[in-house]
């Protein structure tokens, strides 16, 4: 029982990080209809910027978090403005491939600007162990779970009550009609990229706090994309939940069935779920016209 509780808790913690990045995928998909294959790289860059702030400017946790969020937003805006916006109206395949190109560039930038060695991100907090009902978690892991809950609530309110959120849903539902109603698709796309980059950045910093920085960190993007599919590509909060689900299933399978089953279990679950729900757990069923 103790093992189960431990596996469950750490599964939820890593799942929360997957979930955050998965939400980043979903936000961009919802607003622009694209999959951003550079999501993991963007989160890695932000984590490295956080490390630079922590080692050169100030190790204060608030300074580091605020600085890295600002950096992530700027990165998202820059990618949207200079790389993605010129591709508007081009075939969707080509546009998605451009994000893969961005991923290659960002990945190499890491080793060019920083280096290829692993680093520990130290902001004074995050390494301490918090005990809750007999289960020990690092405070950074608790922070990841709390961040996921906070951002999920935020998105729920954003999409329901804010003008920009409603506009984003309108663009997602039908961008041409939204344009006719006076919604600026450009601005919505820019906001989506900025939001997505910020969420991924937060996830990256939390990941770095728990597992250290390394140039291989971009792989959390690859691990989180299936979570987006599980939750439903256009379901932002559903993707967050999908991440937690994958984290828990992976951890339980890794703990009880051996480490070889860890990756496979998550993917097996996705196949089974998609067989029953072809558009993910919370995704909207696509209605096709002939």
């Amino acid at each position, binding site marked *: 029982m103790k093992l189960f509780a431990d596996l469950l808790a750490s599964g939820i913690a890593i799942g929360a990080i997957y979930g955050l990045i998965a939400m980043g995928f979903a936000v961009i998909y919802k607003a622009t209809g694209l999959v951003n294959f550079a999501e993991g790289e963007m989160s890695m860059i932000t984590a490295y910027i956080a490390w630079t702030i922590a080692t050169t400017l100030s190790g204060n946790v608030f300074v580091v978090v605020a600085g890295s969020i600002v950096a992530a937003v700027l990165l998202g805006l820059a990618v949207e403005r200079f790389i993605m916006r010129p591709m508007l109206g081009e075939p969707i395949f080509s546009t998605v*491939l*451009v994000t*893969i190109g961005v991923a290659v560039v960002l990945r190499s930038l890491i080793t060019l600007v920083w280096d290829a060695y692993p680093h520990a991100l130290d902001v004074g907090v995050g390494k301490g162990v918090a005990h809750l009902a007999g289960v020990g978690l690092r405070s950074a892991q608790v922070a990841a779970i709390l961040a996921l809950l906070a951002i999920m609530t935020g998105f729920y309110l954003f999409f329901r009550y804010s003008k920009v959120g409603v506009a984003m849903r309108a663009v997602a539902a039908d961008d041409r009609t939204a344009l006719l109603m006076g919604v600026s698709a450009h601005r919505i796309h820019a906001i989506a990229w900025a939001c997505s980059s910020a969420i991924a950045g937060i996830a990256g910093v939390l990941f770095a706090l728990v597992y250290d920085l390394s140039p291989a960190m971009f792989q959390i993007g690859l691990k989180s994309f299936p979570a987006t*599919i599980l939750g439903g590509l256009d379901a932002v909060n559903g993707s967050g939940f999908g991440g937690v689900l994958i984290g828990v299933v992976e951890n339980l399978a890794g703990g009880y069935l051996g480490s070889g089953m860890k990756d*496979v279990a998550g993917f097996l679950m996705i*196949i089974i779920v998609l067989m029953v729900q072809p558009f*993910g757990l919370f995704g909207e069923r696509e209605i096709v016209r002939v």
Partner: protein
Amino acid sequence: MRSGDFKETYADLVILSDSKLVWGWAAALLVVLVAAPFYVNAYVLSLLTLVFITATGALGLNLLTGMTGLISLGHAGFLLLGAYGYAIAVAKYHFPPLVGFLAAGLAPAAFAIVVGLPSLRLRGLYLAITTLAFSYIIANLILEARSFTGGARGLTVLRPEMFGLDFSSDPAFALLCLFVAVLTLFACLNISRSRIGRAFMAIRDNDIAARTMGVNLQAFKLYAFMTSALITGLAGALMGIYLSFVSVEGFPFLLSIEALAILIVGGLGSSLGAVLGTVFIVLLPEAIRILFGLFGGSLEKILSTGVHEVKSIAYGVVIILALRFEPRGLVGVWRDAKRLWTHWPLRY
């Protein structure tokens, strides 16, 4: 001067190209490619072999993603199955290489039925992730079945000897790869003009409309998966022989993405595009390397610490720019050039 494209016999309709000029140029290219392995140095030869193998694999993926419109992120899995199919048959059970190639084609094709079944229910990216999931599962199964596959240690493969010919020398092996690539190209060109190919394209353009026109979706989607897996499996076997070593690390997930990049840079859905894309993507790092060599001295000194990174940044930037300025892919450039050539000085 021809004033139009007139088909007078059934043979005219069946023939791949009715232009003698096209056949002439194709034959000239083939002669050059056959002769090249005996004249170029070892390094160029290895690149050439890589281009042939990659072209085979890209044509296989093009059949599924380009022609039928089913996105696959799991073709690295089929490459693995093909490589292991050959390695297990030949290196472990000492069957003749021809049987090995048969196994390399049939094992992925059989597995493709399992992978293809979800495609009857899923669309777009949901299907892409399912194929990705299958490729991870294949890799893990291979790692787990140690007694059969050698697990993480992999299997060693020797160059084959078939039809009384010895393919152990590098030029001979390059010719074998060229033979397979040309065969695949012809197969793909012919499939695309047949009833099956038309059905594939109908499914890509609108599957519900295709279904109402009497295309059996289940059968043709599975068929596309199987054919694509078979060709990719052959490419995997060749790749395994080329590396002379088969292991799970030899076929990383990124190969699947690179294959998609080849198709899109070349021009999705066209066999010519798959070949052009292969040449472009495989030779791009070399071109960048040569370019750096030209501007050499000073540049190299400044970047002495990060040459490798600068090169891969250049690789990414070239892909972004190529798509930015020619989203139709290299096939678009080729068609524009051809039009300019035939109609000059007129524009149309």
